[in-house]
């Protein structure tokens, strides 16, 4: 065996052990819910809990809406910056990195402080207090999720836009009579399929596991449920963590198969 091959394998094995050993530990632990029996009892109990389904469904709905809002907000922004305002790219990139330095707790307290009372301009109410109803609190929650997912979604979209010749494709579509709406939804977005899917996956992962925003806004999300479960039970949280990993991997495999041919298509734009 070549010396370089040996060291390559050594480092890959080490990295794999580092990543998979804790996971294996959690999986093994989750199978030992009953004394002297290896089985899926913790999984059965976790899935039998109505709260699990309720919170999991709620977080999935929030994730879905957050992804839609993120795409609608970020794709046109990143596209416009790339096309018309390339000199503003560093500013936009800085803004998208802010969620890394501003903790979620600061964000949620900011929201509560700002939106828990109606915004009034003299006798005129611009908008009512957003924390008064479940629906409006969900709006706040989604806004928070969009901010938290911003660095990931923006980077995915920006990388996707850099991989296609945005300017020329836009001009080609314009010369054929297309307006901005057609260009955005029939040319740009379909060619960002891979980028949007990876951005969506990251957003989904963030939203489903998010704890702080949902806890302080008092919404029945999966993150707070897991945290509460961990305080009272030992085996079920481990089982649900494994389920979360499996769901993420499933999504990644799905993305791989959906976007398999897209690179070849994208190169045609150049």
């Amino acid at each position, binding site marked *: 065996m070549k010396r370089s091959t040996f060291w390559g394998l050594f480092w890959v094995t080490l990295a794999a052990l580092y990543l998979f050993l804790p996971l294996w530990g959690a999986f093994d632990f989750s199978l030992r819910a009953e004394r002297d029996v290896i089985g899926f009892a913790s999984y059965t109990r976790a899935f039998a809990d109505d709260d699990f389904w309720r919170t999991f469904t709620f977080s999935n709905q929030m994730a879905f809406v957050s992804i839609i809002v993120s795409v609608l907000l970020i794709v046109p922004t990143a596209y416009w910056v790339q096309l018309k305002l390339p000199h503003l790219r560093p500013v936009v990139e800085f803004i998208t990195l802010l969620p890394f330095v501003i903790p979620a707790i600061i964000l949620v307290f900011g929201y509560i402080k700002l939106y828990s009372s109606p915004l009034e301009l003299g006798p005129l109410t611009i908008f009512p207090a957003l924390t008064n109803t479940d629906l409006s609190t969900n709006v706040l929650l989604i806004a928070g999720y969009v901010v938290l997912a911003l660095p990931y979604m923006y980077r995915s979209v920006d990388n996707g836009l850099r991989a*296609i*010749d945005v300017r*020329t*494709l836009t*001009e*080609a*579509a*314009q*010369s*054929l*009579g*297309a*307006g901005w709406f*057609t260009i955005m939804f029939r*040319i740009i977005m*379909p*060619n960002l*399929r891979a980028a949007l899917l990876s951005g969506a996956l990251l957003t989904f992962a963030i939203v489903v596991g998010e704890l702080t925003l949902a806890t302080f806004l008092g919404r029945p999300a999966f993150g707070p449920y897991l945290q509460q479960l961990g305080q009272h039970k030992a085996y079920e949280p481990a089982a649900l963590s494994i389920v979360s990993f499996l769901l993420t991997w499933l999504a990644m495999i799905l993305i791989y198969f959906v976007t398999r041919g897209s690179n*070849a*298509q*994208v*190169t*045609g*734009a*150049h």
Partner: protein
Amino acid sequence: MAFLELSKVRKQFSNVAAPAVQDFNLSVERGEFVSFLGPSGCGKTTTLRMIAGFEHPTVGKIVINGKEVTGVAANKRKIGMVFQSYALFPNMTVADNIGFGLRVAKRPKAEIEPRVQEMLKLIHLEDKAKRYPAQLSGGQQQRVALARALAIKPELLLLDEPLSALDAKIRVSLRNEIRAIQRQTGVTAIYVTHDQEEAMSLSDRIVVMSEGRMEQVGTPFEIYNFPQTQFVASFVGTLNRMQARVADPSAGALEVEGQPLTAARAVEANRGETIAIALRPEMIHLAKGTEGVEMNHLNGAVEETTFLGSIVRTRVRLRDSVISFDTFNNPNLALPQRGEMLSVVFPREAILLLKGPSAAQESAV
């Protein structure tokens, strides 16, 4: 009235001191094929982009088919455009790409499908309708781009260096195809290129551009044979440029390094003044001693002989100047040897009197 008119067009970008295009006036007739020829940064693409509506002139106006379009958005101009990078939509098949403009215009399906088939037939890619752009060669992609631009029956077809990304062989075949299709459809075409051979072979007229200005407008024959400025003379074809002293302006008498020459026409300069002249290599021949007095002679020493297969290029040093000329290869004749003194001849008409500043440092190209 001309089909396309550009009047006093000027484009000044805010971040650049020199204007990208200035004082651009051009009239193009319906069905004409006009090329903008010039080096990189001469303003040819900017002018094309102003016609397309992707840039707006700082000053001046653009009229297409009697309608002023200076401020009209690109998607309202009904102009077909072919890009250097093909710009096919990667997510659409060949047929969908070609039919895109018609679908945007909300044409009925019964009109779109036959039109797409007609275009596929025009570019000889009927069997590739279901392919994606990435599954086609560069030449095929560019033909699809051409079909897509023509499918909407544009008033004007703009081609921005469409062959630059292709290899030499495909470039030649595709340029012939572009010209044939343009003739067949009768569409008015503006073609941007930095390749003089491409411009010569395709165009009814050529606009030679330099530093944002039009240097000369004319047929390929006029541009090549009668360049009016030093820039045109040097950019189009190979050229020997020399300094000549005016001996007798009215008689066209000149002197190059002490050797007398006569131009075919009077010289617009004063006696004793130095002007720039040029000679095309193909107008120069080795003297046989039987030439008449109407021919110009120049004597010099062979500096270098280069065998190029079908032709032999010989460089002859006069004193400070060097001139090059080509002769057809003949295996029965010996090549001129280095240092050998020889005489070259050329007709009076071969002397091109160039306008603009004299090229004091330049000798031969």
